[in-house]
């Protein structure tokens, strides 16, 4: 039981660390976006439950937009 709990806690820590890295990358992208960008950013899969982040090119440059995942069951 204890070993299983420790294993699960390790999993949570590992996932938390991965999410922290994703958040840092997202923060740096929002602070300094590249001049041209496009497509869905797979790096952020799983960071926002049921959502994904994508680039959208606008007249003022690329903008990160939030979208509901298409494979998500509508509520």
């Amino acid at each position: 039981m204890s070993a299983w709990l420790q294993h699960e806690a390790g999993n949570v820590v590992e996932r938390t660390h991965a999410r922290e890295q994703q958040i840092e990358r997202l923060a740096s992208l929002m602070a300094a976006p590249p001049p041209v960008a496009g497509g869905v950013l797979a790096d952020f899969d799983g960071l926002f439950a049921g959502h994904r982040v994508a680039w959208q090119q606008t007249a003022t440059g690329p903008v990160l937009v939030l979208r509901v995942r298409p494979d998500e069951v509508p509520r």
Partner: protein
Amino acid sequence: MRVAPLRPRVRFPWRWLVDSPLVLVTWVVVLLAASTAREVDQALGGADDVRRRASFWMAKVAAETAAMGVSLDDHAGAPRCMTVGDVAVTVQAVGRELRVSCVPPGGGSWSFDCARLPGASPAALGVPATTGVSLAIDPERLAGAFSAAELPAFRRDAGIALLHLDTGTDRDDFVLDGQHARFGIATDLVAVPGHLWIEPGDEPLRLWLERDLTIVVHGNLYVGRSLAIEGTGRLVFATMIDATSRPFADRDGNGRWSAGDETRAGPFEGACEGGGNAYLGLPRRRAAISIASGLVVAGELHLAGPASVDGPVVLGHAITKIGGPGAELVATGARLFRPERELVPGFVPHGPGRPGLLRHAPGNRPVVGEQPLYLAAPGR
């Protein structure tokens, strides 16, 4: 002789705790359980913190999307509700600002403010170094700017040019005074009607800026020592070419137009020291210079020694080294702007209007989700 009273002695037999294997195993299990509980608690605490941060960034991305989609011509001030992903977003125009409130699906609410910008700043202010570009200063803004003659941070000095140049200068000279160099929130553009000097010294000149500041120099800029910025603002020096002076490449480094120098804007005329030029390091004092500001030079940039610049370096012409082979410029790019989302004071904006950078406004309560208890009905 007194006899000591007899008292019962309470003794705890510590051996009980380890006497039996069953007790020992119990202790081990208790310690293991406590350790596991602590690990699980820490892991869940960390996960909760990351969940809260993820909620914030989700709200920020949604706020960005919503702000970019709002027409900046709408000054009505009525809140507009929309959904970005599953985030409920409300955008409201408040004066010259937009207030964006977000409620992500996981709970919590976040608010952001941003300015409504008339356009973008010049792209060159977002990269470390650009050559052959001249940036336009907004004449209307410049006409309404503070003059260096009326600010305590600047002093007129008739003798400083003769201290550092053989023949002095024809135009007025102003010195950026370190003792009073504090610029408040109201000051974002200053015009210097002459040359601007930063005196030589062993310690860097320290400026306190509460917001971004552009100092437009109508003559030359002479930087004699390093410059440090304190506070949240960023500084840009911009030299201008006007009708009374011409920029030139000062090949011999004597600070005035002389044989061998090259003009940069038509035939040379006007003040003998020219105008629109910048000197990092002075001809008689070729020290290493490090400035935490940006540099927009309409004329020629002269290097009297090694120099590093943290802000954007935008040169209308070229670099002339008057300090020998060691005079190199390093543009670190440590204090750049986001031209597409920030307005640098004094420079002419271009392109369509847009929201500025989002600022987290923790004190603002979102209006999303507020519904009247009873529907409004006409009175009978």
